[in-house]
């Protein structure tokens, strides 16, 4: 049994605890005065302290030896480090919370110039990937675990041969966001006569970059400034969910979404075939089949005066195109057209339209382009040809999994490469086909940098010693190039040479470095904007297909491209639209389902024309989807790389092919057959209508602006039998702005990580036993074909007259004087009466002892939150541990708690800043101001239970003709 390591350390521990609490603990008196009861208290405290210090495995001991405690490190007190998320190539800034030497929670970094404080679901789940049992423990050579020296010796010998023979060496990577890592890779490749870096993205935006090569002479992706757009038109671009930079886009988008923001509310029109998260937030949606997207753009371009030929379009769509063209015309200079198709003709049309409408310089920033998708599909296609021809002698895989995510041609060609090296963290599908495995650090263990948008540079610093015998990719490339340099040194050298020189504000490198490290990011200069070139739009006009089903492949908000499919948090995250977990499926419109006689869960066999692969997928009937579209999510059907992803869904990546050099599968005609049997999908929400209940209030913009007071709800809350609760120094309240919330679900995973909420698995979700404390209810209003969508985050409403509190026989759920409805886990006997009596159904019961067997995975738990045992009820606590921490800090500093210091996890990382939280007793706090908003309403306020969470009416920027103004609910 481990106890404290030294008496002094223990005394220090006791002292710091003493300061945290108002009631003095009986310590510090002479031992002789200690009574029997005090003795037990004392030894209990010692035991607790021992536990707190003893809770570490061999692994952590290696990470942070306490023999010589680091300066400024107090056990039990969290430390925050600014770093950069490595979950995808968007490069959001994060603040990592480290407790006793291990990162336990990631949050958005408000100082980061691109993400500005937001973090998505994938980012929130990253700590789980750090402590993943399925990570490679060290290098492997031909399937056997070896030492780095052995691996390096073998590789050096082979590389030396290749240097001599001039064999082709390629590094294949997803977008390398880190300039230092790119330099290292290029440095390594430079030692060969024929070395080349091939960047290719799984969810590619290569056609977009290629379009700018034609229109501006430079392969680039502009940085879209959504906050500048009065009118946003999205065409098959899920920019709030999965496209390029969802967090940054959501942050910018939300700045203009709502009637009381500093600048007028923007209007958002989405043209799409499936119902994406972005489409679900649009004020207007136009449904079209995938093959109609390019003709639609052509029509749009023609209406806007561009000389392009166009394919035929149904009259209804042609009229829509004309209408949108008029609107774009009306917002000239302040509109924005976004297109997510990986189609060079479509992207060139979009680039030229945006130029013609004068969006460059306002909403389309070419001076500081986005560097988040640098991949070029054409180079990948060339690589596959090279490999198939036996011309590639060595291929190094970095941050990509091509065997899984690229067309089957890659896999067969890959086998012809004699030397296959993988730097992947897990033994994924591609690593399994490699001869040499040289696992990289997890990004939380590594020194890295990032430049997501030109000029916005940020740093990533390690939060702990590497857990395993992995090696930083920068060091690996350095070692293989014969110039072994520690990653930190390489990073500093690169910054001194290539980053520091791009700014003039700070004259001294050390100061610049330290500031950037502390803040996590810095602004430097970037190159000039390229100039527009007139030209003919490439490609032939496309004709819309008139009938038959067409395929739409898309990425889900939770799983993205599938690289994190082994993270259970993400598998269990309900899709914001379908609310399904642990599966992909064939989404079919209600009309198509009726026509084909399909119901939710029926099996359907799909095969794109010209493909051999047929997938059998369960049907999800998707309101709002185009009637000829069948949508299938990518990122599922993993066969390696972590147990949680195995056998979940089907892999649709092989359906993609290179169409004129760009990876796509859109608009491919589908062969559709009925499958045998049904599948019970694990959905967290089965009922999609509001049943005429006023749970969500909506209003059109114009009537609201005419009379904001008209938004105020009329009904009065009912009286209560019991009197008011007395309130102490604080009374916490939360307001959620439904106009701003996009339903991105980052908060759901953030809450899960912060509060140690278990993942229960597919079967238990089927039994409706998911444990999420915070869920996002999604309702459809209006018709099935063209529904309105509402996302309503639902969490414990911390009622003042809580129905749950009255019914608990053992007082396991009680009211705090700060207005919190507290759940006392160790008092709970589990009658479930409270959950039954909760009108919001936000209480969650521990049906089983959820497994926490993995010592490694347990390291990711938040030590401030109890891990609940079987038979106990739990629910949202408003992150009471964070409120306590903020209060303790304020108390230790001898001051009042400031507004905005105590933030629940959901609020902190909301990319849309839709959540306001604070002390409603402080008249100057932000929450007190928001509580006076006429748009504010309570869900089920008429029950008289006084919820502390309220919502702001969802304002839609629609013309009242299309929807009756002031119309509430469904």
């Amino acid at each position: 049994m481990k106890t404290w390591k030294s008496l002094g350390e223990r005394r220090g521990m006791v002292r710091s605890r003493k300061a945290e609490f108002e009631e003095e603990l009986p310590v510090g008196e002479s031992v002789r005065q200690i009574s029997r009861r005090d003795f037990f208290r004392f030894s209990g405290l010692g035991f607790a302290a021992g536990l707190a210090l003893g809770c570490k495995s061999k692994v952590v001991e290696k990470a942070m030896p306490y023999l010589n405690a680091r300066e400024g490190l107090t056990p039990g007190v969290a430390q925050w480090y600014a770093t950069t998320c490595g979950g995808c190539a968007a490069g959001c800034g994060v603040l990592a919370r480290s407790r006793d030497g291990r990162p336990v929670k990631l949050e958005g970094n408000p100082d980061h110039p691109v993400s500005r404080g937001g973090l998505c679901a994938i980012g929130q789940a990253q700590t789980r990937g750090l402590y993943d049992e399925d990570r490679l423990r060290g290098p492997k050579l031909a399937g056997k675990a070896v030492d780095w020296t052995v691996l390096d010796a073998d590789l050096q010998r082979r590389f030396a041969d290749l240097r001599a023979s001039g064999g082709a060496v390629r590094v294949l990577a997803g977008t390398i966001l880190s300039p230092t890592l790119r330099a290292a890779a290029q440095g390594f490749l430079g030692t060969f006569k024929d070395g080349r870096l091939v960047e290719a993205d799984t969810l590619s935006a290569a056609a977009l970059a290629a379009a700018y090569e034609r229109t501006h002479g430079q392969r680039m992706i502009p940085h879209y400034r959504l906050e500048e757009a009065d009118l946003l038109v999205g065409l098959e671009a899920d920019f709030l969910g999965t496209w390029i930079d969802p967090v940054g886009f959501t942050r910018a988008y939300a700045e203009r979404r709502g009637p009381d923001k500093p600048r007028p509310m923007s209007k958002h029109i989405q043209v799409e075939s499936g119902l994406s998260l972005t489409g679900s937030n649009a004020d207007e949606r136009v449904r079209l089949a995938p093959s109609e997207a390019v003709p639609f753009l052509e029509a749009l371009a023609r209406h806007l005066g561009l000389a392009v030929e166009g394919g035929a379009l149904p009259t209804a769509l042609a009229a829509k195109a004309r209408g949108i063209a008029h609107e774009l015309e009306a917002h000239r200079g302040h509109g924005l057209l976004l297109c997510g198709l990986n189609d060079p003709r479509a992207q060139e049309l979009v680039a030229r339209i945006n130029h013609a409408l004068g969006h460059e310089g306002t909403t389309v920033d070419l001076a500081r382009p986005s560097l988040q998708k640098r991949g070029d599909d054409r180079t990948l296609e060339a690589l596959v040809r090279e490999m198939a021809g036996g011309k590639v002698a060595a291929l190094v895989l970095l941050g990509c999994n091509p065997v899984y995510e690229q067309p089957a041609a890659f896999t067969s060609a890959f086998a012809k490469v004699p030397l296959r090296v993988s730097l992947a963290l897990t033994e994924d599908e591609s690593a399994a086909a490699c001869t040499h495995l040289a696992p990289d650090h997890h990004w939380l263990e590594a020194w890295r940098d990032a430049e997501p948008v030109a000029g916005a540079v940020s740093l990533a610093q390690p939060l702990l010693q590497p857990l395993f015998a992995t090696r930083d990719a920068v060091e690996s490339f350095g070692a293989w190039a014969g110039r072994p340099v520690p990653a930190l040194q390489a990073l500093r050298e690169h910054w001194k040479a290539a980053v520091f020189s791009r700014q003039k504000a700070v004259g001294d490198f050390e100061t610049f470095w330290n500031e950037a490290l502390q803040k996590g990011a810095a602004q430097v200069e970037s190159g000039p904007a390229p100039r527009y070139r007139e030209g003919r739009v490439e490609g032939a006009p496309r004709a819309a297909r008139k009938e038959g089903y067409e395929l739409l492949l898309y990425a889900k908000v939770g799983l993205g491209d599938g690289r994190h499919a082994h993270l259970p948090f993400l598998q269990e995250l309900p899709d914001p639209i379908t609310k399904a977990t642990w599966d992909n499926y064939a989404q079919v419109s209600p009309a198509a389902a009726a026509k084909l006689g399909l119901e939710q869960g029926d099996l359907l066999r799909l095969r794109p024309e010209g493909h051999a692969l047929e997938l059998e997928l369960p049907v999800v009937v998707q309101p709002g989807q185009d009637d000829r579209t069948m949508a299938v999510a990518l990122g599922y059907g993993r066969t390696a790389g972590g147990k949680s992803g195995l056998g979940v869904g089907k892999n649709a990546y092989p359906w993609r092919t290179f169409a004129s050099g760009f990876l796509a599968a859109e608009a491919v005609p589908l062969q559709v057959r009925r499958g045998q049997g049904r599948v019970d999908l694990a959905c967290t929400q089965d009922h999609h209508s509001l049943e005429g209940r006023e749970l969500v209030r909506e209003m059109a913009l114009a009537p609201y602006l005419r009379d904001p007071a008209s938004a105020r709800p009329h009904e009065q809350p009912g009286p209560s039998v019991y009197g008011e609760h007395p309130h102490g120094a604080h009374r916490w309240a939360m307001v959620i702005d439904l106009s701003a919330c996009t339903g991105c679900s980052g908060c759901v995973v953030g809450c899960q990580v912060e509060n140690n909420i278990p993942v229960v698995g597919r079967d238990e979700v089927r039994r409706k036993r998911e444990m999420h404390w915070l869920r996002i209810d999604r309702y459809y209003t209006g018709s099935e074909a063209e529904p309105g969508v509402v996302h309503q985050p639902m969490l414990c409403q911390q009622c003042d007259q809580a129905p749950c509190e009255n019914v608990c026989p053992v007082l396991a759920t009680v009211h705090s004087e700060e207005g919190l409805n507290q759940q006392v886990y160790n008092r709970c006997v589990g009658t479930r009466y409270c959950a039954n009596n909760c009108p919001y159904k936000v209480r969650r019961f521990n049906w089983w002892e959820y497994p926490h067997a993995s010592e490694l995975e347990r390291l990711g738990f938040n030590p401030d939150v109890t891990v609940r045992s079987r038979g106990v009820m739990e629910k949202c606590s408003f992150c009471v541990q964070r409120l306590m921490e903020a209060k303790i800090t304020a108390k230790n500093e001898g001051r009042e708690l400031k507004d905005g210091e105590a933030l629940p996890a959901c609020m902190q990382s909301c990319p849309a800043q839709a959540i306001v939280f604070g002390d409603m007793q402080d008249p100057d706090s932000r929450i007190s101001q928001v509580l006076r908003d006429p748009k504010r309403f309570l869900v089920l306020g008429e029950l008289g239970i006084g919820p502390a969470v309220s919502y702001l009416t969802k304002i839609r920027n629609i013309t009242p003709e299309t929807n009756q103004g002031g119309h509430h609910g469904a």
Partner: protein
Amino acid sequence: MAHDADVLTANGIPAAEAERYGHNLPLIDGNKTYRQVTEEVFAPTERRPPLRWWLVLAVTLSMLSLGAWAVFQTLTRGIGTWGLNRTVGWAFDITNFVFWVGIGHAGTLISAILFLFRQRWRTSINRAAEAMTLFAVMCAGTFPIIHMGRPWLAFWATPYPNTRGSLWVNFKSPLLWDVVAISTYFIISLTFWYIGLIPDLATQRDRAKTKLKRTILNIFSLGWNGSNRTWSRYETVYMLLAGLSTPLVVSVHTIVSMDFATSVIPGWHATIFPPYFVAGAVFSGFAMVLTLMIIARSVMGLEEYITTRHLEAMTKVVLATGMIVGMAYATEFFTAWYSGNPYERYVFLNRALGPYQWAYWTMVGCNVLSPQFFWFKKVRTTPWMIFILTIFVNIGMWFERFVIIVTSLHRDYLPSSWATYRPTFIEVAILIGSFGLFFTLFLVFTRVLPMIAASEVKGVLKNVEH
């Protein structure tokens, strides 16, 4: 026979009236003598049980074992073995609880209220009915314990002095009221039953053949000597306890109904619940007494003690309470409509037309339609017909609780959380097990203690000179 207005029958009813309504018919058939009564009532406790009894016991013990296995699974693995979910937090567990508490109502009603109302026909059935009450309450009592997530801490729900400082029970919680109501009911019923048993225990003691049996019975008969003073005190105590038990008949199910009535859940939050539940409890309790008595009288050969007149009297109670229950169903719908509350309206429409409509219509068919056959005297006096109809009532009353609990919970306020519930095998096994427990206890009772209150029956024998 000349009728005089002053002549009263043994029931205290004017003789003329008694004849008109059949009250002057003997309560016990077969011209029994005191000795005969003693011999026939105590015989089962003194003989080796017949093979039939052992076979039935084997069946009930098997049911009990199945239930014990299911409870073991629940306790060791967790409530996850049940079909409950985040939306439906109670289903079979509390359904069974309320069902068994309801069954437990008839015994006290028969022994206490009918005693106070001088309904002397109760004498042949009160002992068995009270025993049934106790066994039903024992069955009921297991469910609040095993339905807890951490049943080993169930004692926290009792207000006992402890060293946990301010930790105490929540007197606002109807579950706590339940604990108090059920435990009070059990203790009073047990005492009442035991006091009523004392004269018969003394008889049993006097007839005992082994020393051990005599010693044990001597202790439990509290030195009964049959003196006038003993009888006088006995009757005073019995009367007092009858008075004490009477309000409990009403209070227990009133409080059980408040588990639902004090909540905010549409379909539960209704002021009609207390009378509705009490009527339902009497309804189901009498139905279960009838079911058991019809079996017992034929198996134990007690047709002359439990006559068709007894059965008929009880069917009338079933008919009356069945109509009260039917009225309550209708009133609930009216109130839901009249309230204008959309949630309330939806719950009731959903009950009748939603995914659990089969359960609702089973309930209506069993509880409202089947008792209507009791309008016919032929049905009221034909044991096999009564038996079938009371089985229906038992099924219907189980479904009533299931309908109230599950249909109200599964679609309450927020449509996003709506879910359906399906029981698992474990839950069904626990229900079977509770029947196993009930019947096993009853079977053992019939062989250990006199099933009929011999001392009381002797008081209503008509043909014997006093």
